[in-house]
Every structure is written in C-alpha cells, then in structure tokens.
C-alpha cells in the first residue's frame, strides 16, 4: 500500500461524508419527531424517540446494504462505499439508542432484571403473532455491535480479511432479524399499512439490487477461455487494455487483473489485501497499482506494496504474441517478480500515434 495512505488522516472527503451522515440523521429525526408532535398533541417523547431512532436505523441499514451492489453496477457510487464503516458505526449507535430506551421503558423498574425480562416477560416463542419480537432486535443489535467494535483496520489485519469479511456477512442475518422484529412487533399493532409496505419495498429493492449486481459478476466469471496452449490462455488483444488501467479476467476461478504500464502488460491477483477490493478497477498512479476502494498500492512488476508496507499479492505470467495477449492462470507465489510482457505495437499504430 502507498505511503500516501497514512499521510492522509481525516481528509476533506471524509469530513464531507461525516457531515452528510450527521445531516441525514438530524434531518430524519427532526422530521419524524416534529410530524409526530404536530399530528399527535398527546404524544409522549419516549415513544417518539424510540420510534424515530428505530426507523432511522432501519433506513440507514437499507442505505448501507445497497451501496455494495450499487458500486458494482455503477462506479460513480464509489464515494459512498469509501468509509461505509462510518455509516455502519452510525447505524449501530442509533440502533443502540433505540434498544437501550426500549429496554428502559419496557423492562426497567420491574420485579426482575431488565435483561432477564427481555427474554422471559413474553415466553410465547412457539407462536408467530405473539412471538417475543424484542429478542430478535436484541440479537440484531449484538451482531451490529460485533461489527462496530471490529470495524477498525486493526481487526481486519488481526482477524484476517477472510474472517472479517465472513463476520460482515452476518449483517444479512441481522437484517433478517430486524425485518422479523418489525413484522412481529409493531406491524401487529398498527392499522395503517405504510410501515409494512415500506419494509417490504425496501427488502424487494435490496434483493433486486443484489441480484442485478450478482448476475453481472457471474456473467463475467463464466466467460469461457477456449484457446489454450502450454498452460496459457488467450484472453484479449493487446489494444483492449487501456494505458495505466486493467482488464479483469476470471479464469478457472482465479480473478486476474491485467494491467498496462509503460507499454508492458503485468498480471496480478485481482483481490486487494485490504478488504478484497477489485484491483483491476483501479489505476496505476505514480507507478503503483492503486486499489479503487481505499488506495492500497502494489508494484506491477512484483505485486508487492512499496516499502515500508508488506502486502503482497499473487502474480501471473503474461505472453504477447503479435497482437494477442496470453495469460497463465497458475498463480505465482505472492510477491513473485516477473518481467512485463512488452506490447508489440503495429506499425500503423505507431504512425497514427506520431500523427
């Protein structure tokens, strides 16, 4: 990764991002509470607080869960992906306020400990309509908590990106728990279907986004490479790879990024060591392949991050035959140095370039 990464702390973009999150939350909470107060002079503030934070948390959850697939569909959403963790931590904090106030309001000052009450007041776990919905919210909150405390890159490195990413997949379980928390909770009480319909619409939108993004990915992955010789696979014409950029190929389940740098071609593993960002969607900046997600950097010639950083990715052999580019999908050990394959530029192209 690049030296420049550490040099930048809380930069301008991050500040804008955080201000935006703050404005979003304040705008939502004040709208909800003001409208509740105006349309219900008899409202109680505790309920307004519990409900406004609850609905803000679930709204943020939908935003968080749609950023991933949106960036896969359109790169222009990348600025939202970057520092998505701030959104995650914000969501957890808001949900924590909701959960804590609910426990206070509904379980404190009683004849048993509030946390015992949470699970034992209503024991109709065998019923659907009477199910103790608050327990579902509690487990979702525990998952969000684990994600929030392991959100720092320190944990990413300690746990290894793979485990960390697996931990993050639990967010989908938490999402499901939250949906059931709403459906078996307040939806059983309200007569107006707005909340019910909105939660359904939100789920439908998320599933659609994930399916659209997923099928695109799968289509790319299933591209067949037929022409093989001596372990090398024909992938494309050399002119298809733009300067300082890459094309991504998925060959035998290996995701490979083929970069063009100073008219040579270099192939490295497409998966960033940081959080698995798609390196092939990055660019070469100051001679380093730069990850589009958070800017980790790797040298094209050996897949290593420039010193003092120690990240290394697999590299691959590339061959150029005439205008054809051939790739060997057998990965070399991480950080293996190999020469770039010089592009043979056809005479007419040279003449054109000169013109």
């Amino acid at each position, binding site marked *: 990764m690049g030296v420049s990464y550490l040099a930048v702390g809380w930069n301008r973009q991050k500040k804008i991002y955080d201000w935006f999150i703050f404005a979003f939350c304040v705008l939502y909470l004040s709208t909800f509470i003001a409208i509740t107060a105006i349309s*219900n002079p008899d409202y109680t503030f505790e309920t307004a607080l519990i409900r406004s934070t609850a609905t803000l948390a679930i709204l943020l959850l939908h935003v968080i869960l749609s950023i991933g697939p949106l960036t896969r569909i359109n790169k222009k959403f990348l600025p939202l992906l970057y520092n998505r963790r701030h959104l995650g931590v914000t969501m957890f904090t808001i949900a924590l306020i909701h959960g804590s106030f609910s426990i206070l309001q509904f379980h404190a000052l009683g004849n048993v400990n509030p946390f015992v009450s949470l699970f034992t007041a209503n024991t109709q776990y065998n019923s659907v309509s*009477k199910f103790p919905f608050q327990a579902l919210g509690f487990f979702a909150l525990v998952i969000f908590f684990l994600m929030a405390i392991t959100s720092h890159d320190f944990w990413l490195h300690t746990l290894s990106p793979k485990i960390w990413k697996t931990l993050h997949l639990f967010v989908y379980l938490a999402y499901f728990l939250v949906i059931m928390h709403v459906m078996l909770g307040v939806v059983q*009480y309200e007569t107006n279907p707005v909340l019910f319909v909105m939660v359904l619409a939100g789920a439908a939108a998320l599933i659609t986004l994930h399916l659209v993004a997923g099928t695109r990915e799968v289509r790319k992955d299933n591209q067949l490479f037929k022409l093989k010789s001596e372990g090398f696979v024909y992938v494309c014409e050399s002119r298809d790879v733009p300067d300082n950029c890459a094309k991504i190929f998925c060959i035998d389940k290996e995701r490979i990024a083929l970069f063009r740098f100073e008219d040579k071609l270099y192939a490295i593993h497409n998966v960033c060591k940081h959080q698995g960002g798609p390196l092939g969607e990055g660019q070469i900046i100051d001679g380093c392949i730069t990850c589009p997600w958070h800017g980790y950097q790797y040298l094209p010639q050996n897949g290593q991050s420039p010193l003092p950083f120690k990240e290394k990715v697999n590299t691959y052999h590339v061959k150029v035959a005439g205008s054809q580019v051939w790739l060997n999908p057998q990965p070399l050990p991480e950080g293996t140095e190999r020469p770039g394959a010089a592009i043979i530029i056809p005479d007419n192209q040279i003449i054109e370039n000169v013109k």
Partner: protein
Amino acid sequence: MSNNDFYIGWMPKAPGSFARHTKKVIIALLILAVTVGVLLATAQKKFSTGQFEFGRLTNITGVYFKEPVPAIKVMSGKDLLGRASYITIPLIGYGKFGAGGIILDLEKEKHLDLVKKEITLKGTLLYNDGKLLMQIDAADDPLVSVNKAAGENILPLQKELGEQTILGEIVDPKCFFGVMKPGEGKPHKDCAIRCISGGIPPVLKVINNEGEANYYLLMGAQGEKMNQAVKEFVAAPVAVKAKVVKYDDWVILYVTDKKSISPVSARQLIKPGSQTIGCIAPCLK
C-alpha cells in the same frame, strides 16, 4: 477511463464526474430521509389521550379499600338526583409494581390497619377515558394523614349481572391509562406482562358495538388475584367467561379459572354486531 476520472477515497477531492454524481445521490438521500420520516410519522396510530402527571403530586382524601384491588373511594358531592357520588381510584405502586407492598409497609410502620379508614394520600395521578388512578411511591411519603374510620354508608354497591362471555384485551391499567403510548397491543406486550407480574391489577379493555370502551377488573372466582394466571393472555384478543358484578363505579369479572380465558383472533374482536361484545355497565365517559 482517463486519470482524472478515477476515484480514490484518500484524495482530497473527488474527480468532477464523481463529485457531480455524489451530489445528486446526496440530495436524493436527503429527500428520501424527509419523505420516509413524514410517511412513517403520519402513519402511526393516534396516540391515546391518557395523562400521567409526571413530577406533580396531588393529595387525595378518601376511604381506603384493600379489596377487590387497593383503591381509595373519594366522595365527590351529590349527583343531579341527590345521590352521593363518588369515584374509586385504584392505587398502583412505583415502576412496574402494584400498590399492595407500599400500603403494607405503611401499615407496619404506623402499626395501623388502613382498611375502611379515611386517609389522605399523596401521589401522581393518571387518567383517561373516565378512569382515574393514582401512583403512590414510598419516596414521596404518600401517607399524609389517617383521619377516621368510615361509616357503613361507604360500603360498595354491588349488583350481579350474571355470567357472560366477553371479548377484549387484557391490559395493565398503569400504562394503559396514562404512562405509556401505546400502553396496549403487541409493542407493549412485554411491559404489560412485567407490570401485571409486579402486582398491578389486570384490566380487560372491551370495545362495544358503538366503539365505546369499558374497563373491567379481572379477579379469580373467590376474589383472589389473577395476575399470574393471565400472563400468557396479556396484550392479545381474548374471550373471558366470567361472573359479572357491578362494583360501585367499576365492573369486576370473577373468572372461574384460567380455562375461562381463551385467545381469539383479532378479527373476532372488531367484528361489528358480535353478540358477545358488550358494554354491560354504563360506559363512563
């Protein structure tokens, strides 16, 4: 893709095309926040008119009764026909507790039996829909004075109304009549169970065909407490088969046993013209 069309988060400025797109997304998200906020806030069921005079203490003088539920009966003058009029104010404790414990402590402390004595209590009022209740909290020194034994004329007027099956929802009167909104239904179920387990007397809330509500105290056949027995039926529609007795300005349902309470579907509860829904005693407004 040209160089200035490449986005990296750690750069101080996003490239123009990204910045423009992000600006649009941000505006869309802010509009979304307001729209969702307005829609969800207006879709909420109307909050009840219940009041809990939080932080305000009131002195009330009346005759204390321990049965059927701890309450004080307050004479409020004469009604239009010249009869003595009164209101029975059930007492409840602090938090999710009944008043039984506090009264017992007060009696022990003063070496007194308060039953049928005229006393002045200091507490927090809560009320809605013609029903008035008072919270007494040991921290407020609730027993202001013990005046005298009340005469026989204060004894409750009882009238048997026969055995009936009544549809309604079991609520805890403290939350329902003022402390929480909503103080009924699924979102409030856990809390109602907690309150009723803590000794707050269970109440059956019944809506008649005209949409008026009435509230009946639930007791066992011999006047014993039903708090533990009703726990599993709280906050959901139930049918209760009981001996109905009008008891001063409250109505008491004497339930033979737990089997006399059974869950019913929510649809049954609101079905217009249903035989079993009824306001047996005049719905006090």
